[in-house]
């Protein structure tokens, strides 16, 4: 075993330029692979965090996002009177009826327009979503054209910073506060008084009702009753599940493109590795003959060269993973196709991604290095010794 590790590793170091290029190529492919998986995962995590397991959200039946959902005041009222809903200290149900619309604002960076979510809500929203905290300024005053901005919106969109104002629906709205949802989807939203939103957009309706359950195990009962109620055509979902489903299309999109790109590039990297290993084999014909003459079997020679290829892929893979993990500091802001609105999310590493990436890397090394290693093992002793 000692021979393999020392000898293989040092042999790689001899052809510095070729090895460096091959390792870089492998590293870059691994980086793309890992980064794409991390991005899709980051998107999913962001949306999962957006919900709480103890909350339910009620929307119109088959509405995949709140912007497509319409509920009447009466329907919202019925939801709030259900027993399973928790109550606050004053005995009021812990539930909020919200109106969600998409508005089009310009980004700070390049003035490009993009849709963001405007959520008409009330102060109960904070009680229902304890992860969301006001970080600056104050909550909007009901009955006014005041808004509070999520961390990502405030940073990325013009006029959405504290003290600034933004125009839409024929009014100017003052940003009086900022809130932070810890990376969840709400960070990409503007919140305003629901009745003001209803008036400004002339929509005297709600999109959804979000409520805290007394006991999460009661959700199926609650769900059944509401969904079979003839006065409403609604769907009841666990809040976490509802938002998680909103990552589906975009996450798939990211993964499909990323995997197509990674696979093609991995082909190129494997070919590069193959070329490098074949060159290594042909340059060390005499060494191979010597090893065989001394008594190293074909199998051992094959293992030696295969392990060189694996070294290349492991080093390249390590570089790729390290570079990809640096991406955790980067936030991406792009349109979530499921909601058609801008969403900020980041790159998130997970043990599965690390494992998958290492396997991917190893596979490239094994496949790229296999044939050259076979060639090395099949070298005929006498011809090899005579070579050069």
């Amino acid at each position, binding site marked *: 075993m000692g021979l393999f590790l020392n000898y293989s590793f040092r042999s790689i170091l001899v052809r510095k330029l070729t090895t460096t290029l091959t390792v870089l190529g492998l590293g870059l492919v691994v980086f793309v692979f890992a980064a794409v998986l991390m991005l899709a995962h980051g998107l999913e995590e962001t949306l999962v965090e957006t919900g709480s397991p103890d909350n339910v959200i009620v929307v119109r039946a088959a509405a995949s996002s709140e912007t497509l959902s319409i509920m009447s005041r009466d329907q919202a009222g019925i939801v709030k009177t259900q027993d399973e809903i928790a109550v606050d200290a004053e005995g009021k149900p812990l539930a909020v009826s919200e109106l969600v619309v998409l508005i089009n604002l310009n980004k700070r960076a390049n003035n490009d327009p993009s849709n963001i979510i405007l959520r008409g809500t009330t102060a109960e929203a904070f009680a229902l979503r304890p992860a969301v905290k006001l970080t600056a300024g104050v909550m909007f005053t009901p009955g006014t054209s005041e808004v509070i901005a999520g961390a990502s919106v405030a940073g990325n969109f013009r006029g959405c910073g504290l003290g600034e104002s933004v125009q839409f629906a024929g009014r100017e709205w003052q940003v009086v506060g900022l809130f932070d949802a810890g990376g969840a989807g709400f960070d990409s939203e503007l919140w305003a008084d629901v009745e003001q939103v209803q008036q400004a957009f002339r929509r005297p309706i709600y999109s959804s009702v979000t409520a805290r359950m007394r006991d999460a195990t009661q959700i199926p009962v609650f769900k059944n009753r509401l969904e079979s109620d003839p006065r409403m055509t609604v769907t009841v979902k666990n809040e976490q599940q509802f938002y998680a489903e909103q990552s589906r299309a975009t996450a798939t999109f990211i993964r499909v493109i990323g995997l197509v790109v990674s696979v093609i590039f991995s082909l190129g990297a494997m070919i590069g590795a193959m070329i490098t290993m074949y060159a290594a084999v042909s340059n060390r014909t005499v060494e191979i*003959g010597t*090893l065989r003459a*001394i*008594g190293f079997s074909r199998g051992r020679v094959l293992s030696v060269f295969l392990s060189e290829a694996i070294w290349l892929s492991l080093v390249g893979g390590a570089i790729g993973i390290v570079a990809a993990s640096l991406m955790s500091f980067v936030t991406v802001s792009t349109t979530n196709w499921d909601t058609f609105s801008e969403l900020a999310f980041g790159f998130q590493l997970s043990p599965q991604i690390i494992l998958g990436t290492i396997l991917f890397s190893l596979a490239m090394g094994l496949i790229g290095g296999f044939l050259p290693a076979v060639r090395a093992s099949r070298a005929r002793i*006498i011809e090899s010794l005579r070579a050069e």
Partner: protein
Amino acid sequence: MAAPVVEVTSVSKTYYRDKMPIPVLSNLSLVVPEGDFVALMGPSGSGKTTLLNMIAGIDRPDSGKVTVAGTDLGALGESDLAKWRARHVGFIFQFYNLLPVLTAFENVELPLLLTGLSKKDRREHVASALELVGLKERMDHYPRQLSGGQEQRVAIARAIVTDPTILVADEPTGDLDKQSATEILDLLTQLNRDDHKTIVMVTHDPRAAEHAHVQRHLDKGELD
């Protein structure tokens, strides 16, 4: 006369270069007793290296039999032959054939990696082999840091470290200057005389051949 270590019986070998047959050995027989030092000589193409390769177990005859240390080499499969070589043969090549990325120590250690010896035991064997060839203080140097003569001595250390049955040397002094060549040949003589190593050496240099006990001449695949 001591028991024969090498028995080559009526071997023949023909090579094919691009479909043209080239007969190299014809019905050749040779016996090398234990402790002997044989020089195989002859012009280029006489088959001396081919004969050496068969004795060493890295080539097979088309017909005939090669027995070394009581083992019929023809009866062994590829991997058994490899194992056999590891145990019984020490190789010395014209161009030393040291692995450039390994130190002198690691090069000498190579054959020992095929045995089951512990790291400590290996270390001891390598140290004594290098001491015997007078290069113990250079054990951590790489081949590129050694002179031709020193490289060949490391190669000899590698060849003897497993205490093999025979040493085969293919033009061991072919690439050395006169002084280094003499040192190497003196070393081989010492190994033969003091440690009773059986040595079969191929050379075309008559002065080198003088260090051997016996000189055999090959011409056109036949022994004199």
